[in-house]
């Protein structure tokens, strides 16, 4: 099982300084990601999508409302959720293998099992041969693969991904998108994925959660068959275009009523 819900979550920040005022990063956001589903959070910068993900991870505490994983309320971070960071955030003094092992060690794994499990996940992301390299010896795409392996290795119920491919060049991004689809198909992981890239959203998602100004604008179903197959053909298909346009419309609707 791997079902995550945000239940009536609000998050407010109080800005300090001469003119303190309260800003709502999230306002009464509720949604549920079903087991095995890929949900994409999309919206312009400052819409609260990353905050929603961070609240789901437990890195940020909700000012109101709560987070449920498989029907149980969770507080703070947990091994039931695995985080993939925007810029991979590998520990620069560790090798690729040690970076993957880091999460497992925190889960209490030791010895041969630790090594074997970390290696298996490096293999899953196609980096078995680079196990001994340090992050600065890896390309941006390879680093993010290690980041994905690190999060997957702890076998979380849900994978939370914060614009993981945003900083990569177009070709690397595309190959990682294909790979993520493949990994998701093999592992059946529930994934919550944040992006501001419309194509990426349609390509990866079962459902796209459109956000604006800290509020949930709309949830769009992506009725494309899985596996997604040849993504080049998929991208140019009319169905893809139609869904893409549907999300575009949701993003560009008249602003929500001012509270």
């Amino acid at each position: 099982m791997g079902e995550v819900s945000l239940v009536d979550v609000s998050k407010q920040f109080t800005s300090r300084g001469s003119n303190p005022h309260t800003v709502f990063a999230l306002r009464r956001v509720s949604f549920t990601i079903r087991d095995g589903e890929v949900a994409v959070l999309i919206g312009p910068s400052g819409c609260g999508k990353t905050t929603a993900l961070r609240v789901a991870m437990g890195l940020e505490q909700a000012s109101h409302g709560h987070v449920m994983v498989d029907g149980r309320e969770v507080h703070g971070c947990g091994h039931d959720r695995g985080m993939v960071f925007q810029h991979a955030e590998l520990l620069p003094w560790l090798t690729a293998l040690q970076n993957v092992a880091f999460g497992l060690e925190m889960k209490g794994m030791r010895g041969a099992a630790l090594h074997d499990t970390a290696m298996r996940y490096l293999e899953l992301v196609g980096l078995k041969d680079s196990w001994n390299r340090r992050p600065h010896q890896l390309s941006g795409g390879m680093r993010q693969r290690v980041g994905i392996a690190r999060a997957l290795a702890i076998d979380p119920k849900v994978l939370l991904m914060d614009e993981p491919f945003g900083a990569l060049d177009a070709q690397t991004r595309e190959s990682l998108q294909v790979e993520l689809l493949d990994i998701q198909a093999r592992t059946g992981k529930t994934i919550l994925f944040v992006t501001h890239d419309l194509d990426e959203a349609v390509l990866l998602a079962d459902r796209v959660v459109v956000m604006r100004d800290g509020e949930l604008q709309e949830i769009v179903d992506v009725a494309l068959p899985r596996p997604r197959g040849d993504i080049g053909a998929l991208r140019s298909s009319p169905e893809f275009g139609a869904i893409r346009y549907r999300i575009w419309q949701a993003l560009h609707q008249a602003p929500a009523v001012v509270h």
Partner: protein
Amino acid sequence: MVDLAGQNLSLDAAVSRRAKRRPVPRWVITCATIAAFVLAWEIFGRDVNPVFGSYPSAIAVAGWELIESGELGKALLESVQPFVLAYALSIVIGVPLGLVLGRSRVAEAALGIFVTGAHAMPLVALVPLLVLWLGLGFWVKVAVIFLMCVFPIAINTWLGVKVVSKSLIEVGRAFVASDFVIMRRIVLPATLPYIMAGLKLAVGRGVVAMVIAEFFTAISGLGGIIINSANAFDTARMFVPIVVLMVLATLLNALVGAIEKRVAPWQAEMAAHD
């Protein structure tokens, strides 16, 4: 056409000439300037009244006498022993202090001002008080050197912790690492380059502290030889421990640099890649 061919020929020749000329290694240049400096000093130093100055060959002779009599070895030991102990103590206390200051808001607010204040204060001024407390022997030297070394180490560590990327700490939190594990596995390695820079600063300050302590407490060690020789107007002899101290401090700095490459190799590798 002929002209053009001729030009090409000369260009080829120039390129091959340049390719053949190897750059002079850095150490050769360094050795040459040292040799030139020593030579100039030798030539012009001889004209100076031996009370007011000296020159390399006279210093070498004085140095040899000090070595033969065993005085230099004894003084070196007297100086190095408290230095090593005090330096080790400043690492053992300075690094954890810096880590705590950098990570704990309360500790920073409560103790930060004392650390910056003590670092800024001319600690030499405390020597008379330390002598009252600890006498004139070994321990007062340890105290003076410790006080001069511990603050640059603590402050550098503290500064290093402050600039550790928040995201790296979040990696620890996301994988449910305890505060202690985050400190040991993420903050400490990320801060190592700053700590090593602090250790290098502390070497310089520690050597200064060592000599000051030897001037103001029981006249002993390398500083003792300096004072006694100066009082006897034996300037050549006075220069011997100065040269030894300079070499010692340089070697210690090189040692810390070598340790840095061992414990934080990724830093040098990253710099080479950028």
